[in-house]
């Protein structure tokens, strides 16, 4: 069942490559095989969803941060945790991944009908950079685990002192959220977007927004753990 492409409900985001976003021809989700049709929702609504999620995540990390500051200020048993050097490398990896995710998402094809061959090439480049981003993300997580190994080898565990507790808690919390982001990257790559209300390009944009935020959050936490220790 087709429906007229009512583009006025979708905000066009200018990517500089003329990429308007049209809903898939079958109306998005209304193909009878799904157990339920979903309401048409603008691209902007999905961005609202991600932004609101980020607001909630900010509150979560702000709570941990304020707990950190309060606990540190209580004095006594706070002993600055030595920062494993691999964290610097991990930071670079994450920054690089933000770069590669941008490279990926700006290469997405947009209007496939107009020029199929160029679109295919662009899609290939998108997949390449997207894969590199996923790899960098996984490397970051591996690096974090490695940092944990280093710390525990040095005798600093979760319960050693409050500073080490926060180190593990903050890196674990960030790592968990980043793992969710990696899952999202896989999802963007492998889900069948024809049966969704949004295109893969929109999904990639949403995932990238989340990913950049995780990067920025890591920079903040890293600063807290190094400068603020």
């Amino acid at each position, binding site marked *: *069942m087709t*429906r*007229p492409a*009512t583009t*006025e*409900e979708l*905000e066009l985001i200018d990517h500089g490559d003329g990429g308007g976003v049209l809903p898939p021809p079958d*109306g998005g989700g*209304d193909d*009878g095989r799904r*157990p*339920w*049709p*979903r*309401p*048409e*929702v*603008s691209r*902007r*609504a999905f961005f*609202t*969803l991600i932004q*609101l*999620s980020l*607001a*909630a*995540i*900010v*509150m*979560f*990390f*702000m*709570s*941990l941060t*304020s*707990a950190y500051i*309060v*606990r540190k200020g*209580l004095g*006594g*048993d*706070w002993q600055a945790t030595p920062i494993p050097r691999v964290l610097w490398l991990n930071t670079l990896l994450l920054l690089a991944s933000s770069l590669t995710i941008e490279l990926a998402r700006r290469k997405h094809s947009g209007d496939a009908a107009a020029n199929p061959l160029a679109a295919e090439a662009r899609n290939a480049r998108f997949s390449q950079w997207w894969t590199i981003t996923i790899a960098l993300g996984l490397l970051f997580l591996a690096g974090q685990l490695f940092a944990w190994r280093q710390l525990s080898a040095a005798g600093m565990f*979760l*319960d050693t002192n*409050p500073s080490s*507790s926060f180190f593990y*808690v903050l890196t674990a*919390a960030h790592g968990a959220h980043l793992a969710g982001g990696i899952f999202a990257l896989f999802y963007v790559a492998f889900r069948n977007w024809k049966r969704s209300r949004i295109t893969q390009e929109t999904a990639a944009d949403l995932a990238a927004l989340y990913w950049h935020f995780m990067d920025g959050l890591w920079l903040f936490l890293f600063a807290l753990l190094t400068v603020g220790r």
Partner: protein
Amino acid sequence: MAEHEGSGAHAHTAPTGFLWKYVFSLDHKVIGIQYYFLALFSVFVGMALSLLMRFHLVWPAAHVPLIAGGVMKPEQYLALVTMHGTIMVFMVLTTAPQSGFGNYLLPIQIGAEDMAFPVLNMLSFWTTFVSLLVILAAFFVEGGAPIAGWTSYPPLSAVGDMSGPGEGLGQTLWVIGLAIFCLASLIGALNFITTTVDLRAKGMSLMRMPLTVWAWLITAILGLLAFGVLLAACALLLLDRMAGTSFFIPGGLVFTDTVLAAHEGGSPLLWQHLFWFFGHPEVYIAILPGMGVTSHVLSNFSRKPVFGYRAMVGAMLAIGFLGFCVWGHHMFVSGMSPYSAFAFSLLTMTIGVPSAIKTFNWLGTLWGGKIQFTCAMLFALGFVSLFVTGGLSGLFLAQPTLDLYFHDTFFVVAHFHFVMGVAAIFGIFAATYFWYPKMFGRMLNETVGKVHFWLTFIGVYCIFMPMHFLGMVGRPRRYADLTGVNFLGPLHSVEFFISIAAIFTIAAQFIFLFNFLYCLKWGKKAESNPWHGTTLEWSIPSPPPFDNFAGRHVQVYRGAYEFSVPGEAQDFIPQDLAPEKVGKAN
């Protein structure tokens, strides 16, 4: 502002299969009803717990059913206190008004065919369900349910069962269950806000939204920002309990002459700050939807617009915002800085102002109207009376000088029960009597409902008004037994009166339950607009088709409260009635 054009010009096919239709339904209406039934179950559990509590207080030596061994032990009493508070606050007051009615009605009232993200909606319900199971599981593990109150202050709640029975696995399950609830609430809030921002029908500007929608929106924003804080607090508490960290546990604690060496340097106050930073917005989450419903119902059955619609919106926004600035008023005697206590006190007094504005405006809505005393209206009127009473006792507690006496006495219990345990509940009842026809296609029996109202309204005043006097005499909270302190002796008659009133009032709720369940099958069939309301839910059948508007483009032409407009023959104008059609019938 993207005003969505509404659903396309075609109807969707209905879902098939029992699982998809009723269990994992993506339909916001089914999900709303699921939440409602979860809350209905939980409120009867919560009432049962409080009944056992009141029973034990006045007949401490009596054998109590369900208690192993017969006579209730102090830790069992405290477990009841803890679980009563937890279940009522989270599974009833945070669930029914917002996730129950909000889920059902918000999309319809803004002209949408569903929530923006139906899968997330379904997930948020089932996550809530799981959290309820985990919390209830605490009753059945060794040591029983936790005894640290719904506020769960460390170190009592952080050191495991050396601080008391129930503080072992029971407390751990409680913390985990609560953390799961946080996730569920966050997911729900995302949906509510995005839907309201993005899926409003054409013509449904912000200032034409019903006040119920405003209330659900603001409540969702509060939830979005507050539950992350509780989640962080729960995570840290769990680590203190299980991983040997010391976020909240100071050093050198001694339990039965044994030093607890594994922890040091933590701050019990840190938990309180985190918990109450969440906890105060939480109570506004509990009451705001009820305020929206009250405005809505008062207007409908006075056949008059809401008095001061813009002021009402502004007041709810102010309450929501200020709600984040006052958490320290729970901590005046905690050892917190007395200077910040001063600041919190002034802010708390200020938050009384928008509440007063709403009360004035409710009276203004009624004044000059034509009041029809349906059950929904009775409960809405009751809400106003109860909210006035409960709000005013807050003025005492907001002053640290007075709080030095009243903190942790029954004066506080009176205050929060009036605003939450009764006013908010009356909001739920008003909403139930009002929207039951729409939700289930049947009318509730109004006569039976009126009996329910009178008994409940009298009953709650009898239960909770005397608690102010208990507080003035100095009766502390969470006392498992009234014989341990001498000055409580003369209060026995008051406690007895309260317990009897509680028994009667709880019994009266079974009248409601009977009415509710009976009419599901045998109630009179409901038409689409039995109350002659103006908002969009009354323009569709009762119950609505699964996509609400059956593919129709919804267009809104006016505000939500056009009752008794001068010069019109009909005493209400639906929001979506085209201008050329107004006044032409009759």
